[in-house]
């Protein structure tokens, strides 16, 4: 089927929770890359009897295309050597490219593998705006998936100065300008203020009201300013927050305080698993998942993704550079740090989560507890913070852990129980996700939270991003090997084989701002920058911006 073609998918069980459809067997029609209500009887047909039909997967939080990710790739030739990925044999002689996998696959391989899992939209959650050109180029080399990225703003020196001066409107205009200049999709905050302090020689932020350079600049003020900016600009996605104190025992208190600080404001809290530990720094670890998710359950303006840890190799790669220093210092593992001028930091440490390790077992349990105790799947997104908690390739196993209690309990029996006393999962959680709930946490929910109106559902007018799975009692195998994947109307996977690899679209925003602010930004660049203001913005992108408001 060509992109402009028609296709009637016949007899599949449709899981389209955004439109209230839960497994109803009916046809689905596609024309010109969109879902349509009806097609002529002679339109080509695809027999989907016995199959489960869902919208294409939407990854709200991944790391696939920044200079930091690429530093992580460069750091680990050994994981690429053992996971070669030959160029797929596409139809009609369409060129395809070989690559390598591991926890951070090369770009083409990333696109092929995401599509091979039935994911058709992916966001990189952390790009330094000064390096946005490189992120766009990497996404251009990541085929099939529609993609975009979030711009790191929570430690930006210019922004912090506006907050110090009480200029929150100017801070909002700056954020708007920066998103457009970088071709980004959303505002990202990583360890608000903490990375700026690390670059200045401090190791930590002590609480939401600790000063960052100036008494007026605190993690709380940064969170408020950027949450308000995202909401005032009516960005399609809320501010995307990685809280302070990632990975530290007792950090659930910080996380809850951050959520309360933004009470009543739309905000997305990311990889919540890494921020939901009870206990205290000197008094050991325990799960803090129940308290954290209880807050999310009770506050409809808050959403989250889980950032599940999966046992096996991972690469921790984050703008939260002080965390990586601590991980390096405590484990002696290889460590990359790159301080990125006036904006952010970057740290990379390759890592392995072992089920025999007490902390890794706790992290695994905390993530599952968040999923299983969440009352609203629409605000709880499936993620592993790829490649931090594990590869996106482990999503099918994670889905099985959520859908299959027997399997989950078997796995639980194998992990180190040392830190699991009092955990809800250890005490027994019977919940099993339904297919519709999986459809919500992997596509319908993230699409809605991202403000992507044409994605995550199968109503007329939606993008024809569709995944067809063969039913299988082993849900890991079912979700690992879709039978068919359709992206923008193009059949990219047929009978489990990747057959076409069209380029994806770039998802970005261009919110309005008071043009007068650019004079001040230009002076700032002249004074402290090493890149000319005129050379900073990436310029026009091939796809139109997603509208705000």
């Amino acid at each position, binding site marked *: 089927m060509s992109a402009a073609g028609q296709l009637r998918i016949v007899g599949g069980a449709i899981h389209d929770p955004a439109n209230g459809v839960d497994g109803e067997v009916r046809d689905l029609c596609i024309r010109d890359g969109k879902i349509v209500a009806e097609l002529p009887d002679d339109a080509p047909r695809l027999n989907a009897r016995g199959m489960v039909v869902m919208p294409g997967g939407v990854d709200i939080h991944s790391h696939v295309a920044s200079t930091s990710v690429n530093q992580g790739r460069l750091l680990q030739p050994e994981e690429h050597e053992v996971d070669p990925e*030959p160029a797929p044999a596409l139809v009609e002689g369409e060129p395809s490219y070989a690559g390598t996998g591991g926890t951070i696959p090369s770009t083409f391989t990333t696109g092929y593998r995401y599509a091979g899992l039935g994911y058709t939209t992916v966001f990189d959650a952390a790009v330094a705006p000064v390096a946005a050109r490189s992120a766009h180029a990497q996404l251009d080399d990541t085929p099939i998936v529609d993609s975009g990225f979030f711009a790191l703003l929570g430690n930006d020196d210019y922004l912090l100065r506006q907050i110090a001066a009480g200029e929150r409107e100017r801070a909002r205009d700056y954020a708007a300008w920066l998103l457009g200049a970088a071709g980004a999709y959303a505002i990202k905050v990583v360890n608000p203020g903490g990375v700026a302090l690390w*670059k200045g*020689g401090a190791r930590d932020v002590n609480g939401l009201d600790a000063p960052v350079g100036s008494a007026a600049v605190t993690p709380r003020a940064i969170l408020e300013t950027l949450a308000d900016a995202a909401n005032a600009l009516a960005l399609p996605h809320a501010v995307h927050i990685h809280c302070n104190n990632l990975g530290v025992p007792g950090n659930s208190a910080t996380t809850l305080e951050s959520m309360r600080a933004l009470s009543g404001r739309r905000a997305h809290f990311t990889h919540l698993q890494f921020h939901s530990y009870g206990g205290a720094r000197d008094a050991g670890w325990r799960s803090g998942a129940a308290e954290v998710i209880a807050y999310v359950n009770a506050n409809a303006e808050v959403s989250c993704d889980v950032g599940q840890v999966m046992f096996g190799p991972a690469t921790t790669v984050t703008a939260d550079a002080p965390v990586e220093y601590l991980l390096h210092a405590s484990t002696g593992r290889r*460590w990359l740090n790159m301080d990125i001028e006036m904006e952010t930091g970057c740290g990379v440490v390759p890592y392995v989560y072992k089920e025999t390790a007490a902390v890794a077992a706790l992290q695994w349990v905390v993530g599952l507890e968040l999923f299983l105790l969440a009352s609203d799947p629409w605000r709880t997104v499936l993620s592993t913070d790829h490649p931090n908690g594990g590869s996106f390739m482990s999503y099918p196993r994670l889905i099985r852990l959520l859908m299959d209690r027997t399997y989950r309990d078997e796995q639980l029996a194998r992990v180190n129980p040392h830190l699991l006393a009092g955990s809800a999962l250890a005490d027994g959680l019977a919940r099993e996700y339904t297919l519709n709930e999986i459809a919500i946490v992997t596509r319908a929910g993230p699409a809605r939270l991202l403000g992507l109106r044409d994605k995550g559902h199968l109503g007329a007018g939606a993008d024809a991003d569709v995944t067809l799975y063969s039913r299988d009692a082993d849900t890991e195998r079912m979700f690992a090997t879709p039978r068919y994947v359709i992206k923008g109307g193009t059949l990219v996977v047929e009978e489990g084989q990747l057959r076409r690899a069209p380029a994806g679209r770039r998802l970005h925003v261009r919110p309005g701002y008071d043009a007068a602010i650019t004079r001040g930004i230009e002076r700032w660049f002249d004074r402290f920058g090493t890149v000319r203001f005129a050379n900073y913005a990436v310029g026009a992108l091939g796809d139109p911006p997603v509208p705000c408001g």
Partner: protein
Amino acid sequence: MSESESVVERARDGESNGESNGQRRVEHVTCLGCGLACDDITVVVRSARIAALERACPLGARWFGDGAVPRAIRVAGRDASIEEASGAAARIVASAERPLVYLAADLSCEAQREAAGLASRLGAMLDSVSSATVLPFVLAAQRRGRATATFGEIRNRGDVIVFWGVDPAERYPRFEERVAPEPEGMYVVGGRGGRTVIAVDVGDARGPARADRRMQVAAADEERALALARAAVVGRAVASEARGAEQPDTLAADAATLADTLAGARYAVIVHDAEPHPARTDDAAEGLLTLAQALNGPTRCALITLRAGGNRSGAEAVLTWRTGFPLAVDFARGAPRYRPLEGASRLLERGEFDAALILGMPRSVPGAMARSLGRVRCIAVGPRASENAFGAEVVIDTGVAGIHEGGTAVRADDVPLPLRPSLEGPASATQVLRELARALSALEPVATRAADAAR
């Protein structure tokens, strides 16, 4: 947007004064004369030649020249069209048993991406000039990681700057003015006066003349000096080599003093040079990386690796994201394999290749390699390709990325910058490589070679 439109568009963005008195000014131009990639150059164009440059250093002035480049397209010595030459090139690489794709200097990232795609489709060996220069640091960083920063952090925070065996005035003329120690920084009040500069002379490789302190290290002692300094930082003694008791270990004392100064900095910076050939042993490279890492215990520290020009860092970035490896990538078995210890130059010497696609400026190809290239069927595509010294059978002159071609280049610190062409040139390397890819697609067996190898 087509390539030629983008040339004009970008040039227009950069012009503030436009055309007047028969001359045109193009501003905010990125210079690829060295890896600093200064992006504040004004190019004054008169009669389709570069007539003047503002803010360019002598290296930059040499790199820009007057912008004149040859425009030959030849197959076996005869003039040809681009289509003919691309077709001939495609037939050569497609029929080769063992092709090499080599990235010399002065290519945009866009051209490097096209080249990586060709290498994958051809099942070729893919390598770049980086294998001949920065390799020991790449390998050491892959073993140990590294602690670094972009130039702006050095400018805004660095208060103790060590130049380790490099005098930027000679090799990177605007480093001192644009990065450190001269400019005022956000957290370094007073610019030069707020910073301590330490010159470390390593054998003949001298640090800057105008330093606040100086340390001498014999070339043979470099690894030991770095190990001693790191030991001092982490508070461990290094077993003293057998030396006469009557001979005090001045190196240990000097290294300890250096370590003290660095550890006492607010933000220490160690600057070294990875060019023009590997000046460091593997152990010295690792010593520099691990010293800078260790200094992040007591304070903050960044190691800055300086690189030569022509977007060399871009080749590493592009190859890494397309293949998982920064250099020396072999597609012979279909999927990429990493062969850093062999590399194009050594394999070529061993007679492994029967055809080579040499992209970029021929004179940046290392000498030994250029000599071995004379033995294989060569295609040269790039600026001044027609001046190649290896007897290329197919020659396609292109413009110089950053002078005649737009696109992107990567600074030595991994920051990407736009290229603003100031002159119209011959066909761009990116265009030629796309033409070559189309010609390959027309040759059916090639499209499947990598896939066959994989099966």
